[in-house]
């Protein structure tokens, strides 16, 4: 194929693609972002002047377009929420220990190990590259810098890089962090600042804690690494698809994978030991209104009891391609709750970061909040942190 032929085919391949948004759409979004940033700054200043720590609300001066009422959808109903929920127009922010996770570090971990970490955080630059050391928020509210290991981005055969800090690297008990690095898994005992390296072959990018084991892998293999001994064995489970197991479920609890797209969305149950397939079923739409469906999942899924929570791209009454978060029944694959986040958000805005006490889901909720809690059973959503421009992993199961 000649150069000019490749050019011609590329042109032909895209010629019927036309913009559907008016040219001024992004300008209006930018205007709302500027207003919101100003409001956030003013609110933060007001709280600082008032001494902080109390409940307050953030209301952008100019909000998103009004949402057309849907009788099957209820906005923030505190009890008996319907299957499809939406975030409130005004998000209340409550005092929360996690609100300090982006604070500057005031001590190195090597000097002040934690009793238990609540979260790991690392700022990123405009290119989504790690920008500065990982910060460790302890349960004492003090932020340390992770100074006992130098982390490099992972890099696959295609030259694509990914930061080492991802949701899932911090153990649910907050005592150990596990990082995929080239040719090894690095385990950091946050209670002693000790580092252990486990050599492993193949491309490693993703980490999931499963009881006292770490599942680490990439595109073509996954290892299960024992936390205490460092013993590693291959396991037949996808590091991309597997949901983080419930920490209370025990070592033998089945591993649950969510994969596929649209009509091919599938939930698989695999044995904890070797990953052997136990059950496989299509993801059902449960009691969702007919106009709603889940199209594709993204980010990590998180199990709590029989529920698995994961961010998704969905079809709503308004559009195919809206942002959402789904909670599924892991026994049946049916969608039990769906948080409809609309389309007026950045693509992949709202990754799930785990479950918290009381059955709430911790998630990103940009631009309304950097971190928020959602109770799928009641529909209540509250803000934890206004902005979260960086990588994060929570000690959440």
């Amino acid at each position: 194929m000649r150069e000019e032929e490749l050019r011609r085919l590329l042109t032909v391949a895209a010629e019927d693609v036309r913009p559907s948004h008016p040219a001024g759409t992004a300008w209006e979004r930018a205007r709302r972002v500027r207003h919101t940033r100003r409001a956030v700054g003013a609110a933060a200043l007001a709280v600082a002047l008032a001494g902080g720590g109390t409940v307050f609300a953030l209301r952008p001066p100019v909000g998103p377009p009004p949402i057309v009422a849907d009788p099957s959808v209820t906005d923030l109903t505190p009890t008996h929420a319907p299957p499809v929920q939406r975030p409130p127009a005004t998000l209340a922010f409550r005092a929360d220990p996690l609100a300090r996770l982006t604070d500057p570090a005031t001590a190195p971990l090597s000097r002040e190990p934690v009793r238990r970490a609540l979260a790991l955080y690392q700022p990123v630059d405009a290119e989504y590259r790690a920008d500065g050391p990982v910060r460790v928020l302890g349960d004492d509210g003090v932020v340390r810098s992770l100074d006992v290991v130098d982390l490099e981005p992972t890099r696959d055969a295609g030259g694509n890089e990914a930061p080492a800090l991802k949701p899932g690297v911090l153990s649910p008990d907050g005592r150990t962090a596990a990082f995929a690095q080239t040719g090894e898994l690095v385990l950091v005992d946050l209670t002693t600042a000790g580092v252990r390296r486990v050599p492993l072959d193949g491309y490693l990018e993703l980490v999931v804690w499963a009881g006292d084991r770490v599942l680490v892998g990439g595109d073509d293999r996954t290892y299960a690494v024992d936390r205490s001994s460092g013993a590693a064995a291959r396991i037949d489970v996808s590091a991309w698809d597997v949901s983080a197991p419930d920490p209370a479920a025990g070592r033998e609890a089945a591993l649950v994978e969510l994969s596929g797209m649209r009509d091919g969305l599938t939930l698989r149950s695999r044995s904890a030991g070797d990953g052997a397939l136990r059950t496989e079923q299509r993801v059902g739409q449960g009691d969702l209104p007919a106009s709603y469906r889940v199209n594709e999942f993204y980010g990590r899924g998180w199990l709590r009891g029989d529920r698995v929570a994961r961010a998704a791209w969905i079809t709503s009454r308004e559009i195919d391609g809206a942002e959402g978060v789904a909670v599924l029944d892991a026994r049946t694959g049916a969608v039990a709750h769906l948080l409809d986040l609309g389309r007026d958000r950045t693509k992949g805005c709202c990754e799930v970061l785990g479950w918290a006490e009381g059955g709430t889901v911790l998630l990103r909720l940009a631009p309304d909040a950097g971190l928020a809690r959602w109770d799928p059973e009641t529909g209540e959503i509250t803000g934890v942190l206004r902005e979260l421009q960086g990588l994060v992993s929570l000690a959440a199961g």
Partner: protein
Amino acid sequence: MARAAGDDGRDGYVSFVESHQHRLLRAAYLVCGNRHQAEDLLQDALLKLALRWPSVREGDPAAYVRSILYRDAVSWWRRRRREWLSARTPDQAGADRDDALRLALREALVRLPPRQRAVVVLRYYEDLTEAATAEVLGVSVGTVKSQCHAALRRLRELAPELGRDDGLASGMEVTQ
């Protein structure tokens, strides 16, 4: 670009977007292989452009937004499940030979790693030089060369019909 008194920049921005968004969207589509996602990618890039418009508009806004678009395309996918790598495009080939080639190229493109795809689109759709491609992606010219070479080799493997001698040139010889 002249700046009128009291102008917040909206008119100039809208004019810029109107004249560039078709080509940018098509490039985004070639890079990510999905129309909805291409729209989202472009809207995010245009949002960033709008937020920086006062400082960018006197320079080269096209270069700025192109850089945002392609770098986001590469990093964006790395942050998410890569199911799309094996996802087929919904289009069906018509009876026309050109249709078949077009679809073969599309399907082969979406199976390339994100950076290789971006290099191919920048070099052969945007018609940029290797140096300009390197600048957009924030990588070295050497990386562009190696990624382009690898991408074309992979395209040959994935879509051998593109090089068949039935209306196209014989062999798979793309000048680099």
